[in-house]
């Protein structure tokens, strides 16, 4: 039924909201801005019969189907596939003010690898 199928799709690999609050981790005394940010994270199942890093060409898939799948192959993992940067304003160890761009701080997309 549509409801059943909807619930199954929710379990698949996707991006989930995760707000990192710097005061929660006790860093708000030296991080001036932002107070926190939406970092997101990836979670969910990867119901793909073949791990992406194995030869997934159509030919290989046909061969594999014909010769059946080797279940010992590790399952694909739900990981970030695209990340973006945020800038932070903070006081460093020398009490100097720094504005810096940090890469790979926000998950923009998830995928099965």
């Amino acid at each position: 039924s549509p409801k059943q199928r909807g619930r199954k799709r929710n379990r698949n690999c996707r991006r989930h909201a995760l707000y990192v609050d710097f005061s929660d981790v006790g860093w708000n005394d030296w991080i001036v801005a932002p107070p926190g940010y939406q970092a997101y994270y990836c979670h969910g199942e990867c119901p793909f019969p073949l791990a992406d890093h194995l030869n997934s060409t159509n030919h290989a898939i046909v061969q594999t189907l014909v010769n059946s799948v080797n279940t010992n192959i590790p399952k694909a993992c739900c990981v970030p596939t695209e990340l973006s940067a945020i800038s932070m304003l903070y006081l460093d160890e020398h009490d100097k003010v720094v504005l810096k761009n940090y890469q790979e701080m926000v998950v923009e997309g998830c995928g099965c690898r």
Partner: protein
Amino acid sequence: ESNHASLIPEEGKKKVPDLQGRSAAQSHELLRDFEATLLHMFGLQRRPRPSRSATIPRYLLDLYRLQSGEAEDAGAPDIAFEYPERSASRANTVRGFHHEEHMEKVTEKVTEKRPRHREAPPLRFLFNLSSIPEDELLSSAELRLYRHQIDEAAGGAPSGQEEGLHRINVYEVLKPPPPPAAGGPGGGSGQLITRLLDTRVVHHNASRWESFDVSPAVLRWTLERLPNHGLAVEVLHLNATPRHQDKHVRVSRSLHQGADEDWEQLRPLLVTFGHDGKGHPLTRRAKR
């Protein structure tokens, strides 16, 4: 890495319940190691412990707001300067430095070409740039000086256009004055050998920040590791009777009439733009 505890249990070796079973001290140590790993990723050697006196220059806060898009928020305060796109486009790190106030000196200066028509006590500023990491290459630097409008009514007869002009010269100090013990008269005063970096004529009928390009000097100190003898700032009231001399540009606490807190926000600020090769430059970002 050998000296960093891996907080993520490895499959088959540790089970999460084990983690729960650790003593509080062990958990604390694990968290501290975890924090050390994260701080190291941020390029920090240890966890910053800001002192109470640490001041956040308004300029850097505004830079952050412009860069992150927060300046576009409804109700966000207006920002009185243009985002330095050119400098920021080559940098992923911007640092702010205040000068070492205890080393501020009034010195007499001699330069080869400029005629000496007035004695103006230039101020020498020393900036401690040792906190800039080795792997961060600077691409530009600016010295920001705040000048405060001179209230003509209070100052007596209003100055005409000509009379309200001030010339601000910013020099790199190439050779510092000899130490007081061996120096000239008046201990601590001596002759500077300088090189002019930037100059500007302003009228004292406005309050604003002026930005001077000091990149050649700062890059020589950081990229070429040449000695950092600081910068010298000279302000001349271009008038036959310089009655507003030293009253317009905020270059020294002693010349500043306001409260100490104001001084912390109005004092000269050296801003460096650099890149450590990790990640994108600080170009402006539309609000998420």
